[in-house]
């Protein structure tokens, strides 16, 4: 790994200032960034640690549930008063990964197979940064791409709590990411379905399922639907056709589990 300057700011304002340095990067829990730095896929000049600021850590509120950007998966699993979200956080990686990895880091990275983007998109979460608020529908732009600008910091994420919700993850056992994961959230205003792990564009909504489930919230409502394999990922873990099949299966499971 190339060397870098380690910066531990005391406030979000100090962190934002430090991130103005050329090739500086924010460090959340490092559970993705450190492996990529070992592989020399990333070589920042400076890492600005976001983990030591009390203003960015913690879970509060009941609806919406507000989670600080530097809150670990483990803390969300233990404390979030949004059961489907807590359960999702408790299935990320393994216990040691959950002790370090953060929600802000996961959302900012927008790995196409990560779990949190599905929760944020299906819940209609609002991502708050040091500059503005971004609704989830505008936040996820593409694979590893978000609406975040250079040096912009996710300070918190605000989750409206649905009447019913569930996340079903078909585990890719080597990476512990989702081969396909589906988050279903039923609000008074309708149902939102977000799919991770499947598309080459990253997390996305499945609008046909949303329409069917908004009319009839049952797994049977999905029966007539099919998922096209165009634009889905294909790799040694699963073909695009297999992932397309899984999207429907996992959506049905999520609806059944949500009750």
């Amino acid at each position, binding site marked *: *790994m190339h060397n870098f300057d380690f910066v531990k700011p005391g406030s979000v304002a100090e962190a934002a200032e430090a991130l103005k340095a050329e090739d500086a990067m924010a460090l959340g829990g*490092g559970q993705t960034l450190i492996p990529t730095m070992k592989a020399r896929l990333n070589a920042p000049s400076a890492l600005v*640690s976001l983990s030591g600021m009390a203003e960015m850590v913690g879970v509060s509120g009941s609806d919406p549930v507000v989670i600080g950007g530097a809150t670990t998966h483990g803390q969300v699993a233990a404390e979030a008063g949004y059961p489907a979200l807590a359960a999702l956080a408790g299935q990320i990686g393994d216990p040691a990964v959950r002790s370090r990895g953060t929600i802000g880091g996961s959302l900012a990275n927008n790995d196409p197979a990560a779990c949190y983007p599905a929760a944020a998109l299906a819940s209609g979460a609002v991502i708050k940064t040091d500059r503005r608020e971004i609704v989830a529908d505008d936040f996820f732009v593409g694979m590893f791409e978000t609406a975040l600008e250079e040096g912009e910091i996710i300070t918190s994420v605000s989750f409206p709590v649905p009447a019913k919700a569930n996340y079903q993850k078909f585990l890719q056992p080597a990476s512990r990411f989702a081969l396909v994961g589906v988050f279903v959230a039923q609000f008074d205003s309708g149902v939102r379905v977000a799919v991770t792990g499947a598309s080459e564009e990253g997390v996305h909504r499945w609008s046909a399922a949303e329409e069917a489930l908004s009319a009839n919230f049952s797994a049977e409502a999905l029966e007539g639907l099919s998922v096209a394999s165009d634009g889905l990922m294909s790799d040694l873990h699963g073909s695009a056709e297999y992932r397309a099949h899984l999207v429907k299966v996992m959506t049905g499971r999520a609806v059944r589990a949500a009750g």
Partner: protein
Amino acid sequence: MTELSMTVNGKTVTGKAEGRTLLVTFLREELKLTGTHVGCDTSQCGACQVHVNGQPVKSCTMFAAEAEGADVRTIEGMANADGSLSVIQQAFQDHHGLQCGFCTPGMVMTTAALLKENPKPTEAEVREYLEGNICRCTGYHNIVKSIMAASGQDVSAIAAE
């Protein structure tokens, strides 16, 4: 190089680290605490697990600088004060929970974290909690048995000695 200070196994320690120095490198090469192992160096295997402020972490995937001021516990801090094996360590010995022993430091640290969170886990809960710890010798069965025994549960019905 900067000077870092942290508490490791109850003692205040200082040592030098670059920005890129991993916690496991700091523990092994600066503090000479070589009980924490590097297996895969890709945060898969868990041989490098230690506790930081009471939480299990993979020390190959955390910078030493992030542990500045933290309370770190390693396998060297797991024995009883008189040097005898702790309940967890003794259970691993009694139930053949190790063969080559390379993964064992991580297994013991993970067990301690699990039992703190869940003092009487079911076998399924133990297996789930071990998701981030890889052992290539035992087939896990006797590790699970050791952990169940360390939690004070009857393991006579768990087969495969």
